[in-house]
């Protein structure tokens, strides 16, 4: 039976590995697209994964300032998604043209 600190250390390392894999998967979605809202959604998810990274790093280092960084990052991510959504709603790019480009690729 391992001690609590050792278990926490191992689980933090495991979580950092899993978060790295999920970060790379989301980056694949950002690159593939295929449409603008897909990329906006993937960027939103990237912010969520980054908040997870910050929380795990805060647990590993015991540095309490990471909590404020996570909250600030969440606020920025939310505002970015809202701004992008309003851009899409106001007819930012031509959907038909985007689908045609998607078919051609």
């Amino acid at each position, binding site marked *: 039976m391992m*001690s*609590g*600190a050792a*278990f*926490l250390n*191992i*689980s*933090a390392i*495991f*979580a950092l590995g*899993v*978060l790295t*894999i*999920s*970060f790379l*998967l*989301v980056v*694949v*979605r950002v690159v593939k697209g295929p*449409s603008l*809202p*897909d990329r*906006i*959604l*993937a960027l*939103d*998810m990237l912010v*969520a*994964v980054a*908040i*997870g990274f910050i*929380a*795990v790093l*805060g*647990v590993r280092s*015991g540095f*309490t300032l*990471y*909590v*404020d960084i*996570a*909250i600030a990052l*969440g*606020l920025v991510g*939310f505002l970015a*998604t*809202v701004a*992008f*959504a*309003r851009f*899409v*709603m*106001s*007819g*930012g790019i031509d*959907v*038909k043209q985007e689908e045609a480009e998607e078919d051609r690729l």
Partner: protein
Amino acid sequence: MIDGAADYLAGALIIVGALFALVASVGLLRLPDLYTRMHAASKAGTVGSCLMLIALAVHIGEPATALRALAGVVFFLLTAPISAHLLAKAAYSAGYRMWEGAVSDDLAETAAVAKKNGAIGTEG
């Protein structure tokens, strides 16, 4: 003994949160269209980062910082559905279609009724 229990709880929360984030990103990659991907990203993704913030609150332990972490959790739980709903509505009204296997489109009917009453497009 109390410290050991808090460490075990924080470790378990970190592992579960990281696995939720992994499930969300796999769903984001595998699901067929924007509206189904939104299920994965905005539900599982939010739960993942919230669980890891709760683990941070449990691990740090002092009330002021733990309370700030929990306030962050509440904030994410409030904003995730708002941004997902706004993005879905924007994408739908901009004309992005669902995939071919979709079986139900209730918003099309609602939009038709609203258009007849002259109510669409006034909120954007």
